[in-house]
């Protein structure tokens, strides 16, 4: 009997445990957001994980609504949100705002950033911006098969070390690497993997000082806020939405949401 139990606790055994739940997700333990540049295969990854058939196509901007689905892995249920593809989280188009607001106010337990392995440098711009907001993220290094065809080799371990978060190479169209991706999502969600995300270093000392001073004040007023540095930066830039969120205290929901997800966890 003990032999069987040992087997069940082994991660290799559990790799086969991905259950696609489609849209059945009344109760879930974790919320996972899917972000990424347009046309990197987010919807394909989404379909792979949930078993849903979101329309996929080889053109940017195809996902216009926020799609939701679910999957379960190792007795935990995950709700997955497919965000519209964006090149950045800084400028002010509608889809960028949807994506940013969700990562910020929706407080996903894990944010999966799908990147195009053949265009890594440009995709990293978004990754770095997401890492400014949240520190629980996984990079899904997608289209790795295409990168190989282009004679590109990507050292995912170096990349993971530089970014401070797990990096999983995938070829989602072929379903390769999805199991490994799920395992990393669950490890980050449960806290087994602690991320130490890369933070953008500003070259200007004035900016550094200003951010530090401002984020101290913010931390004092909103104790427990996880990303004071980012909020400080947005205030410095005069982002009206964040200014309002600080004024009316909506920014507090960032802290409360975390507690909610902790409660859900303790129920199981």
């Amino acid at each position: 009997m003990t032999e069987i139990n040992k087997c069940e606790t082994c991660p290799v055994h559990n790799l086969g445990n991905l259950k696609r739940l489609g849209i059945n997700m009344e109760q879930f333990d974790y919320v996972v957001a899917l972000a990424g540049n347009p046309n990197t295969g987010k919807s394909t990854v989404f379909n792979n994980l949930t078993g849903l058939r979101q329309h996929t196509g080889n053109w940017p901007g195809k996902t216009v609504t926020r799609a939701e689905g679910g999957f379960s892995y190792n007795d935990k249920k995950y709700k997955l949100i497919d965000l519209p593809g964006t090149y950045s989280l800084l400028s002010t188009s509608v889809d960028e705002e949807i994506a940013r607001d969700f990562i910020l106010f929706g407080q996903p337990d894990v944010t999966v950033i799908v990147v195009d392995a053949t265009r890594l440098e440009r995709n990293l711009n978004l990754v770095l911006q997401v890492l400014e907001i949240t520190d629980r993220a996984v990079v899904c290094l997608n289209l790795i098969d295409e990168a190989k065809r282009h004679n590109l080799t990507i050292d995912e371990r170096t990349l993971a070390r530089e970014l401070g978060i797990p990096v999983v190479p995938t070829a989602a169209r072929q379903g390769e690497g999805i199991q490994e991706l799920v395992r990393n999502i669950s490890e980050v969600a449960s806290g087994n993997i602690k991320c130490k995300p890369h933070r953008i270093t500003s070259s200007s000392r004035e900016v550094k000082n200003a951010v530090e001073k401002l984020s101290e004040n913010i931390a004092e007023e909103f104790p427990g806020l996880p990303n004071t540095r980012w909020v400080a930066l947005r205030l410095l830039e005069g982002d009206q939405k964040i200014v309002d969120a600080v004024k009316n205290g909506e920014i507090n929901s960032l802290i409360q949401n975390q507690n909610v997800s902790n409660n859900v966890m303790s129920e199981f």
Partner: protein
Amino acid sequence: MFNHQTNKRENIISLANTLRVKVGSNLHDTLMESIYRDAEIIASRSVALKGEKSRFNFDRTLDKIVTSRLLGFPLMFLLLAIVFWITISGANVPSEFIASILIDKLHPILKEFAVSINSPNWLSGVLLDGAYLSMAWVVSVMLPPMAIFFPMFTLLEDFGYLPRVAFNFDNLYRKAGAHGKQALTMTMGFGCNAAGIVATRIIDSPRERLIAIITNNFSLCNGRWPTQILIATIFIGGAVPSYLAGIASAGAVVFIAVLGIFLSLVLSWVLSRTVLRGQASAFSLELPPYRPPRILHTLYTSLIDRTVFVLWRAIVFAIPAGIVIWLVANINIDELSLAEHFINWSNPLGILIGLNGVILLAYIIAIPANEIVVPTVLMLTVLTTKLSGIGAGVGVMFELDSVADTAQILQAGGWTLLTGINLMLFSLIHNPCSTTIYTIYKETGSVKWSMVSTFLPIVMGFAICFFVAQIWRLIAS
């Protein structure tokens, strides 16, 4: 307590404002620079290139051809023509097969069954001759072309051709004062206008999005292809020597499709210079790499997601429409049915614009779904000309066995080549179907713009048909 909190927050904001002045106005640029610099460093540390970037060169060469000034459009029209030609020629056989089962075999069996259980005449009329037959017609006419067209379209989409189409059209739409992405939503409209209108969400500017929504109707949708094909085969194909019939009728359909694109450009131009004035906004369109399409996967998803979805919608709308047709053809006032009253009343207007009262009534009944226009026209023609020995009685929607039979009926109803041409034009330029109108309302949230999108094309259709009719008659006489 509350005041204290508010004060503290106000302090943070004002501190931010003071610091912002100190930091200087180029904070945004500095940040972006830092992000780009870090991204570059990280990428250079983890990416290695071995040998040549061969595939990139292939992509680039292909892009130079399909988006070239000289070849871009001809190649696109050629591709379009091939897709339509395969659809038209491939759909015939399965269409006839399904029709022979659902209409020739199953319908009489159902009728006999109705008689055997003593069901009243009006009930079997409404249910079997109205609802069932209209549904059967929609299935047999729509399913085969959709099952061929959608997978081919999806394969092109999967391969990465759509962004190139948008790239080609971008310049034209920008000159028309609209958004380049309208080219994408227009292409989606070729499948279904309602889907095309949902797709306009990719356009950020409300002004340009409205233009895209209003003009999407000029993308000939799937429900209208069968009408175009049938009428072109009868009247255009019939007007030329038989060895040219196929090419001439296919050419006529492509002409109508291109006319639709042209009209959407013209209307965009007019709208952006009158009621929806403004600058065309720039956008970056990434030409994604070509990817080998996954053929089996594409076949599966396009069949399940698109074909079955659109077909289901058509059936849902065709059933009540079939009931309505049967009723207006069978409820009599003063010896004449409702349908005949309307046709007699509207005939002068119809003739004036080169159509007739039957077509006008058919378009009113077919508001829910464009695909039932032709069977409605045929049924109403038989009814008003009192042809005997065809079909299965008053108010029965039917499919004739051959194109020649259909031509015979239409000629008996007084149709000419002009009627055929104008019907093709009117089929392109008239109000969107009710699903599309509802989608427009949902997307814009505005009754006004839904009305504009509905009535503007009707007015344009009447005007264009009127002019064509006048010129035609001038030349003929």
